[in-house]
């Protein structure tokens, strides 16, 4: 009961605080909103770039041209063997007749049938990979089967570059997010500090009548939490509407790009922004009021 009464007292004190420093509170909420909008925008851009990279990686494939003396059984056996390799997503058999028809279709203006009577293409296998980083090791492994494979074709350099880009994106992306959170925290600490400073006298009187530091911090932490959640809600609202509009336009203009439009990924990003707001608000208030209690 005592804790409940204290919580009610904290809530009342929080709203008294809001009422008495309305302007400062609004500035603090606006600061949280702006910093979280920047954070959210960065996360959305980062997630989309990540998706594009992932898409490129998922399209990475190794083409194995097989020796002409192999039977269909040999090929199927080899296919199963390749499929069991860690990092291989799928192995697709491409019949040489199908490949030759497709090739002729692609170059129909050349009228190839007139010059080439026999199908010159061998059977082939298409390997799709889960991760670009496994490419080199898988190639090395496959090269051992030189009695089965005639030739190997793959976009080695591109794959390596994509993988490096993905890694740089991951490290720099999260470093930037961490930096943005720190910068947000710094701005919010100083904004909330102004509201705390306006009540420095009140804090010293609270100490004189025997208030514990925890008791003094209580209303400020709730205040920080509310400022954080309000600011974050505004930021999420802004991000949600602006992203929906922008992504709709982009999908229309560039349908081949795999932009993030599914709700679950966006839900995680917006949830992260909202939680960051609450966390940053409370932590900012804690740091601010702790400075006053020293």
């Amino acid at each position, binding site marked *: *009961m*005592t804790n409940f*009464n*204290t919580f009610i*007292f904290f809530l009342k004190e929080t709203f008294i605080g809001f009422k*008495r420093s309305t302007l400062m509170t609004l500035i603090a909420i606006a600061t949280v909103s702006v910093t979280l909008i920047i954070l959210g925008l960065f996360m959305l851009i980062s997630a989309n770039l990540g998706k594009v990279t992932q898409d490129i990686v998922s399209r990475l494939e190794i083409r194995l041209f097989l020796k002409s003396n192999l039977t269909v059984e040999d090929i199927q056996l080899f296919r199963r063997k390749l499929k069991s390799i860690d990092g291989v997503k799928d192995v697709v058999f491409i019949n040489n007749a199908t490949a030759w028809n497709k090739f002729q279709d692609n170059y129909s203006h050349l009228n190839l049938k007139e010059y080439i009577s026999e199908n010159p293409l061998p059977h082939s296998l298409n390997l799709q990979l889960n991760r670009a980083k496994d490419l080199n090791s898988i190639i090395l492994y496959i090269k051992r089967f030189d009695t089965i494979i005639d030739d190997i074709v793959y976009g080695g350099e591109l794959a390596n570059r994509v993988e490096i880009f993905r890694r740089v994106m991951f490290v720099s992306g999260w470093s930037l997010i961490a930096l943005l959170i720190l910068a947000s925290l710094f701005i919010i600490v100083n904004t909330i500090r102004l509201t705390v400073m306006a009540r420095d*006298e*009140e804090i*010293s*009187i*609270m*100490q*004189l*009548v*025997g*208030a*514990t*530091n925890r*008791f003094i911090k209580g209303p400020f932490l709730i205040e920080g939490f509310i400022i954080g959640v309000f600011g974050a809600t505004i930021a999420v609202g802004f991000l949600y509407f602006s992203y929906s509009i922008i992504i709709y336009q982009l999908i229309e203009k560039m349908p081949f790009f795999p932009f993030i439009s599914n709700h679950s990924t966006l839900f995680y990003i917006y949830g992260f922004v909202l939680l960051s707001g609450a966390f940053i608000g409370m932590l900012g208030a804690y740091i601010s009021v702790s400075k006053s209690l020293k």
Partner: protein
Amino acid sequence: MISFKSVTKTYPNGFKALDKINLVVPENEFVYLIGPSGAGKSTMLRLVFMEEQVTSGEIVIDKYILGQLIESQIPYYRRNIGMIFQDYKLLPRRTVYENVAFALHVMHVPPKKIKQQVNYALDLVGLIGKSHHYPRELSGGEQQKICIARAIVNQPSILLCDEPTGNLDPETSWEIVHLLTKINAHNTTVIMATHDTEIVDGIPKRVIAVEKGRLSRDQVLGTYVE
């Protein structure tokens, strides 16, 4: 009981505010602490209230040895002591009632009991009819009464008064001191730092004089001038 054992207080700039003070104030006593400005009266009160720490020596207040208290225990210790200030230290944007109730909120007193105790304290100081006023709407004497009500609302065993009549006219000063003697009669030890000759001579109590950080006189039923 308040006990000072060879208490010395030296500030970081080297100024020695108190020099080997030995003193015992039994329970329920009324003591005037007199001396010129800068003599060390307020420092003595601040040490008892634990706003400052002794440089050497020991202060014992009832069951507390102040030097042994850790920082987190200080708020709980302070709840046994009321403090009255010359400049009142009231919360300007809270009503009379809220200013007094505030001291009980920090002690987690249930709301029903808060109302009961605040009304009792305001009745004692004669402000029950002005509980919804703000401090700025009241006179200096009335503001000091709010400060007194706040200090006694949790029935502390000791009341420290740092020149409580310093900003008041003579008539109001008398009113305040009569109020303090009334509180003293309700089993509260009162230590009052003052410059007011008329009050010290008019209501004779124990007088402890401090000069340049040393006790210069300790007299039962003393006067301002020896």
